[in-house]
């Protein structure tokens, strides 16, 4: 049992009939990491999380959380894990505070009131603590789900699209809270379709496509794959030939990839000489989105440590 590994996924497959929702996934997530699990709809992210949480049994393979096998040692494994499910579920019989107390009890945690209050405060739920969960708005229900995953202070926190349908304010408070938990040593696994969010939060990412990991690397390395920035200019008239500008379908916009910022000046000079008037200029930074799109389109597997 290697204590430094939070999650170990070894040769995990999950088949639904002929569909391979997970196809021999291998993955190790060290403790303390902020890990992003990305992929298009239906890639298998939620299925992977479900096998991790013991909600689904894998067709093949083994998974452990903090060294505890999720099947043979399921009670220990689940104590290590806090999962925010993707579906917006709630129990209409109880208030927010009751829900959190009950959830603490399921994990065998006693005298949890102080921590419950702290979670409520950090998720801006204090004023709703005595409201029935049925009466909450969608975003509020999402907050309760997040709170429920945290009641037992799990060392590993898995968030399956926690910001879907959540307003900007909560998104910011949520990430501040989760970052704090991460810096306190909690391991975070996040799935999201907001790639900027993943880009700014995650230290390592896996990209999943049709049940396979097609990319697994640190965020820095991944971003380095899109080596270049992009300069986009809006012109009056066509640019002179011989420039590395490619026209975009939207008309007056042209784009040029570049590596160093000193490549920009000569280009603008050539445009001026040719009598082109530059109406607007944009500089695009290398973005996770570019890698994501490239990886999902090409389908070539580029897994490194």
């Amino acid at each position, binding site marked *: 049992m290697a204590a430094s590994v939070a999650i170990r996924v070894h040769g995990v497959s999950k088949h639904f009939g002929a569909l391979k929702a997970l196809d021999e996934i291998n993955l190790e997530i060290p403790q303390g990491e902020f890990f992003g699990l990305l992929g298009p709809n239906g890639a298998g992210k939620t299925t992977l999380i479900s096998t991790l949480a013991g909600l689904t049994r894998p067709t093949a393979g083994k998974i452990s959380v903090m060294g505890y096998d999720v099947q043979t040692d399921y009670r220990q494994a689940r104590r290590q894990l806090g999962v925010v499910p993707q579906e917006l579920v709630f129990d209409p*019989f109880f208030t927010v505070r009751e829900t959190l107390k009950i959830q603490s*009890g399921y994990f065998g945690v006693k005298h949890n009131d102080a921590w419950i209050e702290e979670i409520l405060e950090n998720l801006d739920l204090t004023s709703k603590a005595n409201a029935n969960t049925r009466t909450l708005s969608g975003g509020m229900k999402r907050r309760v789900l997040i709170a429920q995953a945290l009641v037992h202070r799990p060392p590993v926190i898995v968030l399956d699209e926690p910001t879907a349908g959540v307003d900007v304010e909560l998104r910011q408070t949520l990430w501040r809270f989760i970052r704090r938990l991460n810096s306190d040593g909690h391991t975070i696994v996040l799935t999201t379709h907001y790639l900027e969010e993943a880009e700014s939060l995650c230290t390592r990412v896996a990209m999943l496509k049709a049940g396979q990991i097609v990319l697994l690397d640190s965020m820095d390395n991944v971003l380095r794959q899109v080596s270049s920035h992009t300069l986009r200019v809006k012109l009056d008239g066509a640019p002179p030939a011989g420039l590395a500008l490619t026209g975009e379908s939207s008309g007056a916009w042209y784009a040029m990839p570049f590596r160093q910022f000193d490549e920009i000046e000569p280009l603008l000079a050539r445009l001026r000489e040719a009598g082109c008037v530059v109406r607007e200029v944009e500089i695009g930074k290398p973005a996770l989105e570019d890698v994501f799109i490239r990886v999902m389109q090409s389908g070539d597997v580029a897994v490194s440590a």
Partner: protein
Amino acid sequence: MGREFSTLFYKETLRFWKVAFQTVAAPVLTAVLYLLIFSHVLDNHVRIHDVPYAAFLIPGLVMMSVLQNAFANSSSSLIQSKVTGNIVFVLLAPVSYQSFFLAYVLAAVLRGFVVGVCVLLVTLWFAPMQFVAPWWIFVFAVLGGAVMGSLGVVAGIWADKFDQLAAFQNFLIMPLTFLSGVFYLIHSLPSFWQNLSHWNPIFYMIDGFRFGFFGVSDVSPWQSLAVGSFSLSVLSAFTLVILRRGYKLRA
């Protein structure tokens, strides 16, 4: 068997208590209506076990309430949690399948008990009642509640939709309870139905339960106890096996 069990039991109890109007008051009213109608029609003509028909009927109605409400509690709680998806809160937690089973069954027994006691208290007003052997009353109420609570767990896990649960209720639970001697003595049936009733475990529960009141019964309460315990053991073992396998709960 620690805090996760007591919490789940507490949650299951709180759940029905919060809607006690539907889960306790409504079934009590139903039982009282049965008593009013049947005893009014038959009271002056029929004596069974040497007691007036209304007095004979009361233990049957009480037990029927215990059984039906125990079944309703575990089955409807589970199907609601499955349909709304909040069953995931229990499935994510380190709740052992034994704790899960016990919590649901005991909450079902408790609901059956609460309804049964309320029915008894209300009906006492209609007919004087004797309590010859109160321990047998208690034992059979618990045994019957546990059998039905366990059956409710199986039904709640098996059913994917509310109408499947309703079918389970209409085609299994209702015949089992109604063809068990709630309203009549088995001796008064044609011999075919009498023989058939002896294959119905619920018959023994009601017969034993009624023995506790009058000290008279169709079969010995010890035999009923044996049949009831055997049924509960088989059913519990079956339920624990499907829970351990995660049947329909963990895909």
